[in-house]
């Protein structure tokens, strides 16, 4: 499951990085400079409109235009940051909430197991072997880990 997620992430990175090597500049239109590599496809479409309908004049201009490409990249970064911030906030909150719920739910089965461990111990008839208090963490920890880990595997299964 985890390996697959890393593979997916690697594929996304490859899909993004490989074009930087693979792409070559498009051929120059007669009488014009070669178009810049990795400009926006919107700009390229605008040029195509110019070649199909040379007489077309845009009849409306943007109300506000970013003062420079630096300002534009600032606004794009802001847009991405807002998006990533909201996703991160929710993800963090949801994970914490689920973890707290799981922690609150897991101690419940422990007393039963601890009692069972105590009975087993007294049945073996070894009252001299250590105090029950010293034994209980060892007996308790697998019991505590038990439901939590089984819950995780169940989820892994459902997710897969």
């Amino acid at each position, binding site marked *: 499951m985890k390996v697959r997620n890393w593979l997916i*992430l690697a594929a996304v990175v490859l899909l993004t990085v490989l074009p930087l090597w693979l792409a070559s500049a498009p051929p120059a239109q007669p009488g014009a400079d070669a178009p810049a590599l990795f400009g926006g496809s919107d700009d390229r479409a605008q040029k195509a409109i110019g070649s*199909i309908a040379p007489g077309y004049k845009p009849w409306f201009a943007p109300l506000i235009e*970013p003062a420079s490409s630096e300002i534009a990249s600032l*606004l794009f970064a802001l847009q991405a940051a807002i998006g990533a911030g909201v996703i991160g906030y*929710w993800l963090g909150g*949801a994970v914490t909430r689920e973890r707290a719920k799981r922690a609150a739910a897991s101690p419940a089965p422990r007393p039963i197991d601890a009692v069972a461990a105590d009975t087993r111990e007294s049945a073996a008839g070894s009252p001299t072997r250590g105090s029950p208090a010293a034994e209980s963490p060892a007996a308790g920890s697998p019991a505590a880990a038990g439901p939590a880990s089984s819950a995780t595997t169940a989820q892994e299964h459902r997710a897969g």
Partner: protein
Amino acid sequence: MHIMEGFLPPAHALGWAAAAVPFVAWGLRSIGRGLQAHPERRMLLGVAAAFAFLLSALKLPSVTGSCSHPTGVGLGALLFGPAAMVPVGFVVLLFQALLLAHGGLTTLGANVFSMAIVGPFVSYGVFRAVGALGLPRSIAVFLAACLGDLATYVTTSLQLAWAFPDAAGGVPASFVKFAGIFALTQVPIAISEGLLTVLVTNAMARFNADELRALPLMAYGRRERA
């Protein structure tokens, strides 16, 4: 996929706006009803909107030598239904038109139609169709997000081809030209969007929060296994 400000003849601009308005109204109603029935999903809707905000800000290089961006509306369409993503896409496009001079107010109707209407509805349709075939959820999510993204760019190419038919070849020749710019550039980016959406839905399914459990997306495949 933004058609630039002023780059659609007035009749086309008006027509696409008129076509988009009923979908926006439908979407607002759908969101209102959804949140009334499940107020706990408010935050999750914000996450779906944030995903669209984030992805549509990422300009990625493509093999054609130009840059384009994913749309991010597929995830929300799978979580809340396609109609819910119409107002979300509208807000994203309005933000970009007003502050970034990307797209425009006159072309908003056409851009909403391609990114916020065709994209989510294709995503949702593909998801249901793949689900009917009984394939794993990650494949359904991948194809839905990927094809929804691609459909957006094919729509943009069609819109421009319709407005600017080629002198010799008419609308089809023009469509080939615009599709070569938009749709071809979009292929690797659409695949990236599909993969990213799979990652996000996997993450959501893994920790299985309360508001997620009730979603149809998370119930996908459980029926088949049971």
